[in-house]
């Protein structure tokens, strides 16, 4: 940003965003440090590690698991994960017979307090269009092939309720601590397009 050399020309979108930000600053409609704070919160603090902590805790504490499935919002708030796009969070428990998968076909609604901002594929037209009509084909593209006896439940987040999936605890994790278990809980497993990782996968 030195003004002297630019390895790549800036995109029109980048230019346009600067024009808008400049005008809003000049008019006193936004505070630059507030924008910084918002960006920083979701780049650094609020992401899928929050959800992974919730999941790992539910794996080791059956009572918490029950609370989490009965009232996700309250149980998640015990960790301080509250706020924007999480006024009401419903947690969907996977079982050997049920795979829950979350989408927002109309938009890209997502439980920010536990998962942060959604990945690009979740916001893609392909995912939004396809997962409600051919979820098994979509899951296969994520590497998840499900047996025919497993029921696939797709949840379309069309209201202001947000959904998070509680993946099954992998086998062979009996002696692991909560912190160790957290490493097995991928973002994708909490959207429902993957299983939690096995200890072997994370080495």
């Amino acid at each position, binding site marked *: 940003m030195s003004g002297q050399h630019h390895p790549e020309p800036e995109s029109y979108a980048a230019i346009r965003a600067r024009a808008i930000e400049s005008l809003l600053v000049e008019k006193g409609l936004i*505070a630059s440090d507030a924008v910084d704070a918002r960006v920083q919160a979701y780049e650094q603090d609020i992401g899928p590690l929050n959800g992974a902590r919730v999941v790992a805790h539910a794996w080791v504490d059956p009572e918490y698991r029950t609370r989490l499935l009965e009232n996700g919002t309250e149980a998640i708030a015990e960790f301080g994960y509250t706020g924007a796009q999480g006024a009401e969070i419903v947690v969907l428990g996977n079982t050997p017979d049920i795979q829950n998968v979350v989408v927002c*076909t109309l938009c890209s609604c997502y439980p920010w307090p536990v998962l942060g901002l959604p990945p690009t594929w979740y916001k893609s037209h392909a995912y939004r269009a396809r997962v409600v009509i051919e979820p098994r084909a979509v899951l296969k593209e994520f590497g998840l092939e499900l047996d*025919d006896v497993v029921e696939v439940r*797709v949840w379309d987040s069309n*209201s202001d309720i947000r959904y998070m999936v509680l993946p099954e605890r992998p086998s062979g994790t009996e002696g692991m601590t909560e912190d160790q278990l957290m490493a097995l809980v991928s973002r994708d497993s909490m959207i429902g397009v993957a299983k939690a990782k096995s200890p072997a996968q994370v080495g």
Partner: protein
Amino acid sequence: MNGIHDMGGMHGFGPIEIEEDEPVFHQPWEGRVYGIVTTIRDAHDVYGPYGLRSYIESIPPDRYLVASYYEKWMLALENALLAKGLLSKEELEAKTSEYLDNPGAAVPRREDPEATQRVVENIRLRLPLAKDPDADIRPAFQVGDAVKARNINLRGHSRLPRYVRGKVGTIEKLYKIQDFQDHVPESEQGPQPVYSVRFKAEELWGAAAEGNQSLYIDMWESYLESA
């Protein structure tokens, strides 16, 4: 609105493109747009009753399909600011030209620690969404009831996707009482029971359905009739 955004069940969009270890924002401008969109509303009612998404839904279909996610946000923000009179088309184009001519020019800063403090607090602020039914609003349906989604074709914002309209499902759960979000006449606005409704894939997609699959979707009561 029967808009391009209502794409559940459409074919032709190709495979899901999955990026490993993707950053939260791919370009700094995406973060700025995100930050502007989500902080400006703390102080100003920029988006109106149907939110930023109603502006996103109003992006012309050809533009909607080629714009990236944050390009859609930026377009919607622009249109909301223009509609509210907080920006004019002329000043926006003039400022854009300035930056096109001087790509290295800095964006001015305005610090406001108090506003920033509020923004940081708002991020984690608990605002209850739903309330329990009371004497005034009693749910018309019970868990297990068969219901049919109405064939509503609103021109404005709606949360009833096309792919469930006219289809028969089952009430799975009552989600308390929530404000209705659709762009309807004032007499139809206000709080309603919201249900989780389950539709079998065969009901939604006929012979094209994959086996052993169901779809759950949140339905405001006025979307439903007894089946």
